[in-house]
């Protein structure tokens, strides 16, 4: 039964050579945060930074997956290969998930120039899964030209995709709320391109006007966010969207994810995650006492967190 496992003998070489099965297996190792997965990511680092990453977010039912499908078609017709990472929510009760984004991606699923991977959010709150950025790295190393990351159906504050994408598209279905919604902080702010999808629906004009009004109240330097209408199911507006994404990428070339700023942000996110998990895992009298002192009002959170970090670091030294 070992015949099927040969591809894993040298995963890095196999991935760089474009072996799809090795890539898929590596994604599982990364997603499950195995020792082999971590070692592979380390080796992968020098091979990153070639792909362009597009983030697609927006509320549930906005048409994100259908729009992604249409974009895949546009890029294939321009000679690019496309990798897709689609995140769907895990159940907070069972931990299970239905991964149903790729079924909207129709005929492109079967195309050899396309690689689609579904991820469950596994309790991670920012609209992605904790390992999504690293699964994107794998697609990058494997040589896919364009990578699309589709978030879970997002609310107002799932803005993590802003960190890992070069260009951010926020899909807004017509008729969601009034002009005050368009003024709020959060998801609309991270958009480089705002897409009014399902633009054949009656409220599309109003939604477009409100988004334009929102943009007119803000100040931008390198790139002014654009509003575009699409009908993903018919393909209307999709070529224009692909052009606009290209224009944005050129305009913001100096701020690409391969740039140092991204590495800095990812180190910060990874460090925060490490500290959070270690503090949650603290045990012993000293930590119990710390909790009790906060609970009684003797100590504030700002002082307690520094002490908790000190306890973590001490435990780490002893280990």
């Amino acid at each position, binding site marked *: 039964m070992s015949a099927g496992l040969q591809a894993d003998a040298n995963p890095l070489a196999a991935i760089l050579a474009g072996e799809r*099965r090795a890539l*898929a297996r590596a994604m599982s190792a990364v997603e499950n945060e195995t020792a082999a997965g971590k070692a592979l990511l380390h080796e992968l680092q020098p091979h990153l930074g070639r792909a362009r990453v597009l983030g697609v977010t927006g509320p549930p039912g906005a048409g994100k997956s259908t729009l992604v499908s249409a974009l895949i078609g546009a890029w294939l017709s321009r000679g690019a290969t496309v990798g897709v990472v689609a995140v769907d929510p895990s159940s907070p009760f069972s931990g299970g998930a239905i991964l149903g984004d790729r079924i909207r991606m129709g005929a492109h699923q079967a195309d050899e120039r396309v690689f689609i991977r579904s991820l469950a959010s596994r309790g991670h709150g920012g609209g992605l899964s904790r390992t999504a950025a690293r699964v994107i790295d794998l697609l990058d190393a494997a040589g896919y030209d364009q990578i699309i990351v589709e978030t879970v159906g997002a609310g107002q504050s799932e803005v993590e995709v802003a960190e890992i994408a070069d260009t951010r598209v926020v899909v807004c279905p017509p008729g969601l709320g009034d002009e005050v919604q368009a003024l709020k902080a959060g998801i609309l702010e991270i958009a480089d391109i705002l897409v009014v999808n399902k633009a054949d629906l009656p409220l599309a004009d109003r939604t477009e006007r409100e988004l334009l009004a929102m943009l007119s109240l803000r100040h931008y330097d390198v790139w002014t966010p654009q509003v575009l209408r699409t009908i993903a199911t018919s393909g209307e507006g999709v070529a224009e969207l692909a052009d606009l994404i290209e224009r944005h990428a050129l305009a913001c070339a100096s701020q690409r994810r391969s740039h140092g700023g991204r590495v800095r942000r990812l180190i910060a996110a990874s460090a925060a995650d490490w500290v959070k998990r270690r503090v949650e895992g603290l045990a012993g009298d000293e930590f119990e006492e710390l909790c009790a002192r906060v609970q009684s009002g003797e100590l504030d959170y700002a002082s307690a967190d520094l002490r908790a970090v000190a306890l973590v670091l001490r435990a780490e030294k002893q280990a």
Partner: protein
Amino acid sequence: MTTQPPKVLVTKIGLDGHDRGSRVVASALRDAGMEVVYTPPWQDIAAVVKLAMEEDVDVIGVSSLATDHLIVPKLMQALRAAGLQDIAVIVGGIVPDADEAKLLEAGVAKVFHPGSSLADIAAEVGRLTRARRALNVT
């Protein structure tokens, strides 16, 4: 420690469009804590093989309610040709006894007939997942 839930593909190949059963099973596996890639009916074999490979699923569940089940041996063949023989395949639906033997002979791990309990299906998927992962230690 991180969780590593089973990853399962629930699909239908061929022309049979009766998808109530596959939806019920997909929901039950989700409720059992599994990550389920769900497809609508009418998938072709090449698409299912590519999907299973890209998603690195542990188990494929094929639902068949209208005598399409004899396509499954072709799926088994295609999976082997793609080097994916470590993925377990189970079939659920209406399968005559005589055909069940053919499916098992073709490498299908288990056939679930009408009246099977969802708990039994989930337990079998869990068992097959553990067996596959014990084999593919990474």
